[in-house]
């Protein structure tokens, strides 16, 4: 399986922090078939992404299989300052998870 990683970029724009996160994940729908064997490829997708700022959840995303492979997520929130830590973590339907942190620049 692909290496588990999250790339986060967070930037202040005025008083609003803009966070962009890119996760590497196959996001299999469970509907696709392996062309050679004709067997269905089992579903493997991120269910939940939690974005935290200073221990407070700023965004909780619930995803279905319709989110694209190697998902991208972007959102904005108020109340952050330069140098603050942003934590992004996800967990998928196979019980795998990943967490990454970044500082607001």
């Amino acid at each position, binding site marked *: 399986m692909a290496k588990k990683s999250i790339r986060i970029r967070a930037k202040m724009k005025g008083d*609003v922090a803009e966070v962009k996160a890119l996760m590497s994940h196959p996001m299999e*729908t469970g*509907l*696709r*078939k392996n062309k050679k064997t004709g067997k269905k490829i089992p579903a493997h997708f991120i*269910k*939940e992404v939690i974005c935290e700022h200073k221990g*407070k*959840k*700023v*965004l*909780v*995303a*619930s*995803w*279905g*299989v*319709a*989110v*694209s*492979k190697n*998902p*991208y*997520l*972007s*959102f*904005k*929130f*108020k*109340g952050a300052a330069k140098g603050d830590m942003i934590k992004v973590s996800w*967990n998928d339907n196979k019980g795998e998870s990943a967490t990454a942190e970044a500082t607001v620049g």
Partner: protein
Amino acid sequence: MKRRTFLKGTVASGMLGVAASAGLLAPRMVLAAWPESAFAAKKIDAALDALLGSSSTSESGDIKIKAPDIAENGAVVPITISTGMTAESISVLISENPSPLACSYALGSTTEGFVSCRVKMGKTSDLIAVVKSGGKLLSAKKTVKVTIGGCGG
């Protein structure tokens, strides 16, 4: 003596049981937060019912959907939903997908009404954004033409 050890044993195991169930409850609650029935629903109304408790939405001009008019590749359709309202949640549904609910975002109190992500679309469909604001459900729609589907094709 025997009875005493027996009692001690039950108390200890009882305590263990409580601790174990408390420990087990936490991850279960996290899992419960993921609305499985809403994602499994095959119809938009059923998905909204399961996700937000109601499927009656009213159209709003204050929700902007930024998505391509024609998506060349249905596997990666970049979308951005933004609204000026103080939104509690933003959900995205795709009318023609096997399960219409694509993603749902619960926003914190300081989070702006803005989310951007990329979704898969099986074929040309309506993109529906549902924003929960002040207990009301508001929606906006945009049709996206898909030339190559995103479901294996």
